């Protein structure tokens, strides 16, 4: 069975500082990896995905994520955080082969202070 772990319930960072939101995964074979963001009382919005190729993928709003196969990780990063980045972030994984359900982590709340 595939799974996603987001070890931090909350990440606090000051505006202008770099941020990292951690994600590790477990899946049979190669993974497809996704990050979504959820603002209060809103649905999930797609940020970025890793399918194949370059391990560093860039997405919306200046976010990027690095795929590390040996560590089975897909951490979300941003060089300079904004207060408006404060939201709930979800990592998700799908298996490479066959049809696979998109499995989400429990989410990490990012709080960016002014």
């Amino acid at each position, binding site marked *: 069975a595939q799974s*996603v772990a987001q070890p931090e319930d909350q990440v606090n960072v000051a505006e202008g500082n770099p941020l990292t939101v951690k994600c590790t995964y477990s899946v049979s074979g190669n993974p*497809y990896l*996704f990050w*979504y963001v959820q603002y209060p*009382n*809103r*649905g*999930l*919005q*797609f940020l970025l*995905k890793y*399918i194949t190729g370059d391990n560093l993928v860039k997405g919306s709003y200046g976010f990027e994520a690095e795929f590390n196969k040996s560590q089975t990780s897909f951490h979300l990063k941003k060089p300079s955080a904004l207060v408006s980045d404060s939201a709930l972030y*979800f990592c*998700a994984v*799908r*298996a*490479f082969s066959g*049809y*696979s*359900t*998109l499995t*989400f*982590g*429990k*989410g990490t709340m990012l709080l960016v202070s002014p």
Partner: protein
Amino acid sequence: EAGVVQSPRYKIIEKKQPVAFWCNPISGHNTLYWYRQNLGQGPELLIRYENEEAVDDSQLPKDRFSAERLKGVDSTLKIQPAELGDSAVYLCASSLAGGNTGELFFGEGSRLTVL
């Protein structure tokens, strides 16, 4: 382009009452999903449709939950009777058909409170 539309946004009912949620996916998206998101958790898949066919309903509690997508476009998720533990946000999502590489597009969700 219109996104995924869900209604109602909020619903409060007493236990044992029925409730229904409606979803209209993005035009041209043949795959439709219903997810349930409990407080403090990530979304969990209830059912997936490819056009009008339910191809993955293994996580749908079939004793009280039902879903339909009769014409392969909009969909309805029903709970009858509702229980206290059904309080959650019900999210609808859609994607282009086929494969595992495409991202899902989510609606804003329907928040259910069962008293």
